């Protein structure tokens, strides 16, 4: 699993990556009450706002971690946003994307580097 400084995790699965927010981010945000997902097929560039989430406290944007195309979204979150709080790196995944350049994954943080960032 790879991480971004924006508190997202990415997990490669064949030629796509699954993207979500980290447990740390979910805890900081508090219980999520609203998730707005992008449309499947959307071409995104790194740092585009792709997902809007709202917690009991405030609204935040989730940015595209890398360039690519959204190929699947986790529709279950629309009705049950708290899945993100309950299982941030599992059932709380947000979208899958096909990266323009799979090798860019290597430039992201590994788990140790991410842990060092949030400590």
């Amino acid at each position, binding site marked *: 699993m790879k991480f971004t400084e924006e508190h997202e995790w990415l997990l490669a699965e064949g030629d796509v990556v699954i993207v979500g927010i980290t447990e740390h981010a979910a805890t900081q945000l*508090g219980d999520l*009450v*609203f998730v707005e997902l992008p449309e499947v097929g959307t071409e995104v560039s790194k740092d585009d706002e792709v997902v809007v989430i709202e917690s*009991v*406290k405030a609204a935040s944007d989730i940015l595209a971690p890398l360039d690519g195309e959204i190929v699947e979204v986790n529709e279950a979150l629309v009705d049950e946003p708290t899945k993100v709080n309950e299982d941030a790196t599992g059932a709380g995944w947000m979208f899958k994307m096909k990266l323009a350049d799979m090798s860019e994954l290597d430039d992201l943080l590994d788990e140790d580097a991410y842990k060092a960032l949030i400590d």
Partner: protein
Amino acid sequence: MSELQQTALFDLHTGLGAKMVPFAGYAMPVQYPIGVLKEHLHCRTEAGLFDVSHMGQVIIRANSGNVTDAARALEALVPVDVLGLEAGRQRYGFFTNSAGGIEDDLMIANRGDHLLLVVNAACKDADFALMQAGMGDSCTLEMINGRSLLALQGPAAEAAFAQLVPSAAEMRFMDVAVVDWNGVELWVSRSGYTGEDGYEISVPDADAVRFAEALLAIEAVAPIGLGARDSLRLEAGLCLYGNDIDTTTTPIEASLNWAIQKVRRTGGERAGGFPGADRILAELTDGAARKRVGLRPEGRAPMRAGTVLFASETSDTPIGTVTSGGFGPTIEGPMSIGYVAKANATVGTVIYAELRGKRLPATISAMPFTAANFKR
């Protein structure tokens, strides 16, 4: 947080794992480990314990010794029937300014030989000054230091409190009483700000932790932070001073007409005689140009404070603004409070909110969003 004041329960909160945040100059618990959503639901189904010690408690005594003189003096500052408030009873009110705006909202209790007020934390010093200037000649004011204020709210509040103080069960909504708990003097009102039945309990600081722990030892009682306090009061349609009402909103714009009793209205025995009476009484008769309303957004996106409202998907001219908004765990959807022009204020009207560049529909709705559960 070194400059922030702490309540007597600070160590109890941190020991319970609370996340502390600055609020009105105090370090206050915004949530405990179970989180805002579960805290909210716990309060609606069982009982929640809130630390509201940051709020101001003020005693007004008439120099004559007669409580009616204190009531008469206070009526010069609030458009409320204070003289008609019986001993042992409490009522909601607000200080108004000469433009008809609201300086603060508060609870007023008649405790037999004096009045006890509970005012907002952020306003308490200004309120004290305002009262000193407005009634200092005839009354002696005392800002109570050294007493904590707890709120116990929810359907299980009565049974829980009665385990410690059996007579509490006999109180009705808005009754006030002084009761004894193991030699500790508690000042109790059967009220709160969640839309649930419950109590607000003033306890000496020295006994506050022990009292809070005695309540928390009861299975139905859980500690609740400011986060859930906000969603609870919002579902109950109650105003947050500084958001939904302030010095620029009149009580009539704020749809608080019910809190101005007949005796203070035009034609009443003690009509007017409070700051801004001209405007407030005129608006009572003719209506205000804008009204505070409830809003139920379609879909799940919360419309929060500052969201601008329009009459249609395409109109350029705003008709109002959201002043509080969020997600209601009990109603399982978003809800907001805001002000809209009189013409758009009828319940059932669909209006549009501009959210992230899109116009999303919301329906003007009656408040409270959840049915109140008071023991009248």
